[in-house]
């Protein structure tokens, strides 16, 4: 039944094109393709049929300053907000992301991708410190941070919140110590720089990676 309708529509389009020479049957837009994507489970992946434009901010990595727009351009990005003093959840999530990275390499996926860890703790996480930390998990992970207001603007624009747990503040062994409550979702940024989906926690690499691959294959081509 579906096949027949597709044929009918195709024929109508063909006739339309021939007779009117218009391009009314163009490829569906990315928004339409996202809307058409059937997520297997919204607890694993939530596509955003109305993509979100992240704020354009200046960030800093071990290689120097960079614009967020340049960082995201041309690649599918899994974006995570965390901090290196994070005792439990960040290393756990980073282990998941390293498994995702390994699977994407093993599967030799055709699309360009990267994993970006944004430190919400620029006061303690210098770009150098951050770089050593993230590369322990996987060479493919990029660690970035920036001036507090730049990091905040980026996070807010992609609806990620974080706040210092004031009750945890103290000095431990000569170190400034405090914990930060933070969002733990993985955000998916398309190569055009827009956020197109969210993987909410808890994360399982074996569950989320096939969904990530099928979403990009279905939505990505243009």
């Amino acid at each position, binding site marked *: 039944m579906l096949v027949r309708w597709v044929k009918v529509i195709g024929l109508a389009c063909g006739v339309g094109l021939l007779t009117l020479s218009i391009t009314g049957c163009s490829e569906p837009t990315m928004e339409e393709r996202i809307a058409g994507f059937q997520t297997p489970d919204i607890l694993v992946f939530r596509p955003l049929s109305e993509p979100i434009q992240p704020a354009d901010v200046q960030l800093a990595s071990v290689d120097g300053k960079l614009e967020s727009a340049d960082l995201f351009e041309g690649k599918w990005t899994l974006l995570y907000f965390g901090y*290196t*003093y*994070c*005792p*439990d*959840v960040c*290393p*756990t999530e*980073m*282990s998941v992301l*390293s*498994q995702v990275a390994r699977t994407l390499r093993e599967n030799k996926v055709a699309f360009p991708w990267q994993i970006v860890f944004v430190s919400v703790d620029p006061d303690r996480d210098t770009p150098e*410190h*951050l770089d*050593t*930390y993230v590369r*322990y*998990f996987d060479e493919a992970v990029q660690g970035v941070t920036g001036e507090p207001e730049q990091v905040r603007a980026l996070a807010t624009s992609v609806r990620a*919140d*974080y706040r210092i*747990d004031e*009750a*945890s503040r103290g000095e*431990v*062994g*000569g*170190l400034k*110590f405090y*914990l930060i*409550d*933070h*969002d*733990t*979702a993985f955000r998916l940024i398309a190569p055009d720089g827009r956020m197109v989906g969210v993987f*909410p*926690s*808890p994360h*399982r690499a*074996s569950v989320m990676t096939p969904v990530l691959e099928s979403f990009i294959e279905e939505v990505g081509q243009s």
Partner: protein
Amino acid sequence: MKHQVLGWVFGGLVMVAQAVAAAPKVSDPWVPEMPPGAHAYGAFMVLDNSGDEAVSLIRAEAPGFAKIELHESVDIDGMHRMIEKDEIVIPAQGQTRLAPGGYHIMLIGPEKRLVEGDTVPLTLTFSDGTVIEVDAMVRKREQMMQHRHGHH
């Protein structure tokens, strides 16, 4: 008199044995290998209580850290936060797991980076007065996570 003393000693031993029988038990203690630059980390384990009353882990100590606290990781509306605990309760005839994303012993300010193969000697004090010393092995986090999932 001699027999009386022996009787006291024997009676005392029986009481100790009974207390030991109901004491909390610690198994599978481990600490994930630290990424370079990490300043706080978790220690994980399984706590069992065969007794008829709830018992709590109230203190953890280990050499080589500036501070050690008991914490629970919780997710509230997609925000992750740590809550410091005065105690971690093991219900009567029950089990409490200290695992990534949940309860953990937070090891803060290590003197040196812990890597696979190291051990952390932990002294755990419980609310019933039991003190247990265990060596937590430092292991790669990913192996332990896969190990854990393998049992599901």
